[in-house]
């Protein structure tokens, strides 16, 4: 890693966060499917957590949540709290399990969307918004999760493309390099006793 690499990831993440919020507000939020619009923010935060780890994920989640709250004139700190948890959780999943399955981003995206939707509703209830739990709210949460699941893989691929090259280590690339440069898989490795 050269000296310039230390700035690359934060710069790319800052640009990614800014563009995500602008596109979300200016376009995605204004297109509704069954009365619900998709929310890219938790998907992007989860993707960053999965790719970069828990600490960058949590910091990116905090910054992006703050930006969302400022840009949408919402109560500051609400989205930050939720996105910190999403970024950190996705990052810990990567660090502890190192999931290699191609559908992992889909499951993580669905979980992130569900957490953001339910969490936002709970926070609003606690802040005094009078909209008790109803079938409509549950339906909205379910449709939002479905939309989030549909968008999770493309969003993950896009985020991966943007931050690729500035990541300290990419689990997939690491694994692939081990096999393609002559390394043996654990199944092929000869035992120490022989």
């Amino acid at each position, binding site marked *: 890693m050269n000296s310039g690499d230390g700035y690359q990831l934060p710069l790319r993440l800052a640009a990614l966060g800014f563009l995500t919020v*602008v*596109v*979300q*507000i*200016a*376009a*995605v*939020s*204004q*297109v*509704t*499917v069954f*009365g619900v*619009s998709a*929310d890219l*923010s938790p998907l992007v935060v989860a993707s960053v957590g999965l790719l970069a780890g*828990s*600490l960058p994920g*949590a*910091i990116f989640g*905090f910054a992006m*949540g*703050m930006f969302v709250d*400022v*840009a*949408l*004139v*919402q*109560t*500051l*700190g*609400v989205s*930050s*709290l939720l996105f*910190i948890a999403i970024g*950190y959780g996705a990052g810990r999943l990567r660090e502890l399990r190192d999931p290699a399955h191609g559908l992992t981003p889909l499951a993580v995206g669905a979980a992130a969307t569900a957490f953001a*939707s339910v969490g*936002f*509703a709970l926070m*609003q209830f606690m*802040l*005094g*918004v*009078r*909209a*008790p*739990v*109803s*079938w*409509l*709210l549950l339906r*909205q949460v379910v449709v939002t999760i479905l939309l989030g699941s549909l968008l999770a893989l493309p969003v993950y691929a896009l985020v991966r493309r943007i931050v690729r090259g500035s990541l300290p280590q990419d689990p997939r690339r690491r694994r692939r390099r081990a096999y393609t440069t002559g390394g043996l898989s654990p199944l092929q490795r000869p035992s120490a006793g022989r």
Partner: protein
Amino acid sequence: MYDKQVRRRRAVLALLVVVSLILLTAYFGESAGSPLHSVQRGVVAVLSPVQDGASRALKPVRDLFGWFGDTARAKTERDQLRKQRDALLQKVAGYQAAMLENAQLRGILNVDDDSGLRGYAQHTARVIGRSANNLLLDRLQLDAGSGDGVRVGDAVIGDGGLVGHISFVAADTSFVTLITDPSSAVSVRVLNAAGDFGLMKPSVGNPLDLLVQLLPRGAHIQQQDIVVTAGSRSSSLESLYPPNIPVARVTKADPEELDTDQQVHVSPLADLRHLEFAQILIAPNGSGQQRAQVGAAGGP
């Protein structure tokens, strides 16, 4: 080394959570003119040109995705409009006679006709953003702000009906709290024979189903009756909305519900989910209207 990394990670996580909680508590407790709100207003003012540009640039994308839903909705709307047209044609003849009579009576009584919207400047603004979760916070962002004379509390109309009121203003942009927002309440009048007054609020858990409450027991209200603003509001402050702006149409008027709960169900006249433009009714200076600093965020 590993312990150090873990400690550092936990410390940063705890710091971020604590900062978020401090911001949340501070923001929730302070008034609309306080430092955090001012910072927010400044950032929004800086961002609004970017959002405006992005909104224009991404319009084709929105239109493409919106086309499918618009087509299905247009067919349903067409059928409904045909029925309404037939009903309205029957009423037009009666109304024309009433208008002639009304003009004659106004001439006799010398009624000042400068009420309603005539005293208001109308500023057309483009919708450049909206809140993602429209069930809990239903807001629009417009590309007009205090530089255009927009003030907190100004009424906003569009697509043939009331849209909401301005709840946050920056230099070049403003936010509209829609009539379907859970915090909204509009004093209205039903255009039935008696002209009954009521308070319109979003239904619990279903903001698109509005309720006109506090109606007199046994009021004679029918489906398709139009609801207009009454010109007063539920708070102690003076009205935010000029009188006689069309707001909604009665969708369900159950006599039993009217008798027990004193309410009917209405649906907004304006298509609040697909607005591209809206008109801000800017009250004339010195009109005597007291302006409320409506909470900018989800706070009280």
